[in-house]
């Protein structure tokens, strides 16, 4: 396969166990670059485990994992910085303001100075938080924190978005805003874990349904 046609994600026999229990057991999957994978399944089926392995936050117990041409976990260091991760926690410090939080994350990703400031203003404006950007985030509602977390997720313009229930705490307006930054058709490869198939199935190029105590099945 030519390098430009290499899948963004390739899993062969992926396995992850916690003690005696296998959260993922022999998962095979290929996701093309620029496409959207929607992951469905009941609680405890291994959706979050899968997304955390792809984000390099968990080590696989067995199998082969390649993400953006990097073999995990050995080449995880090459992959970090190309991933935008939106998990259950917003990864924001409560005692810093919205702008300070984004500046902190920008610096961690090597974005500094005027470039960082203009990117932060662009994102805060996009999520309607520019006027609240100098308030500490503990004063934010859960929905506002989620919008700020979306800014953090895309701040460094990652190639791959790993989104674990991205609509959590968002109202209808918030969901539309989120769509503008992390929706389909923006050039990212996306993996979306969701309990809302009605919303996400229409935009999916591929669907993965994980089940408890059975091997995962790629539906289409």
């Amino acid at each position, binding site marked *: 396969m030519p390098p430009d046609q290499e899948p963004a994600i390739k899993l062969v026999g992926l396995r992850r166990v916690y003690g005696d229990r296998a959260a993922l057991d022999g998962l095979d999957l290929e996701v093309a670059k620029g496409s959207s994978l929607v992951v469905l399944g009941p609680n405890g089926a291994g959706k979050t485990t899968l997304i955390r392995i792809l*984000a*390099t*936050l*968990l*080590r696989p117990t067995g199998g082969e994992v390649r993400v953006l041409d990097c073999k995990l976990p050995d080449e995880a*260091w090459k992959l*970090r*910085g190309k*991933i935008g*991760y939106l*998990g259950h*926690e*917003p*990864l*924001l*410090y*409560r*005692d*810093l303001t919205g702008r*300070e939080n984004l500046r*902190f*994350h920008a*610096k*961690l*990703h*090597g974005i*500094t100075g005027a470039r960082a400031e203009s990117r932060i203003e662009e994102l805060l404006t996009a999520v309607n938080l520019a006027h609240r950007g100098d308030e*500490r985030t503990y004063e934010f509602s859960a929905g506002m924190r989620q919008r700020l977390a979306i800014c953090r997720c895309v701040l460094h313009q990652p190639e791959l978005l790993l989104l674990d229930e991205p609509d959590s705490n968002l109202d209808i307006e918030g969901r539309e805003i989120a769509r503008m930054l992390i929706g389909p058709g923006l050039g990212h490869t996306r993996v979306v874990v969701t309990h809302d198939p009605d919303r996400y199935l229409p935009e999916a190029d591929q669907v993965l349904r994980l089940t408890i105590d059975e091997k995962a099945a790629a539906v289409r």
Partner: protein
Amino acid sequence: MTSSRTAFAAILGKDLRAELRTLQSLPAMALFAITSFVIFRFGLNRTHLDGSLAAGVLWATLLFAAVLGINRLFVAEREEGGFDAIRLAPIDRSVLFTAKVAALIVYLVALELIAVPIFVLFFLSSAASLPPLIIVLLLADIGLACTGTLISSMAVNSRARDLLVPLVLLPLVVPLMIAATAATEPLMLLGGVSYHRFGTWLIVLGLYDLIFALLGYAVFDFLLED
């Protein structure tokens, strides 16, 4: 890969800014030290201390005050997702260790700026021991910060964090405390400042710092793994 200097400045700046705003560690450390000195002054029923007793009172107080700060060092990372944020960034993870060590040194220096003058006021007849004491304090702070950061990062994921830190840390810093008190003792003799074996104990302090700085730098990456 983001430069380590940029990442170091970002993490240290974030920690100091958050501490200045919330004052969660420093006031507790300072209050503990001042209260301990008051208790020692009335408990020992002495207005003047010298030699090993003075060194013991000073270092026991500073050590237990430091434990309060060490306990809270990684709480924000644990509770607010900072560990994940740092693990997702294209940085050398050891930068988190060096930034936390630097933050803890700043806290300890701030604590000593408050506690040591009060100690001198309560227990010493002159401040002549202060200039050489600064060297001992700085070397002990580096060792305490390296060991404390290492232990705190291991204990933070445990529900028994408040118990685990002193339980593991205190035996590890025994050599550091022996060297610090031994270096401090001749500085506080009744007859005036003496430098008997002062240099030897400074070398011991320096070696302790070096060992734990290298150990922390080497193993911290593995401690951040799942």
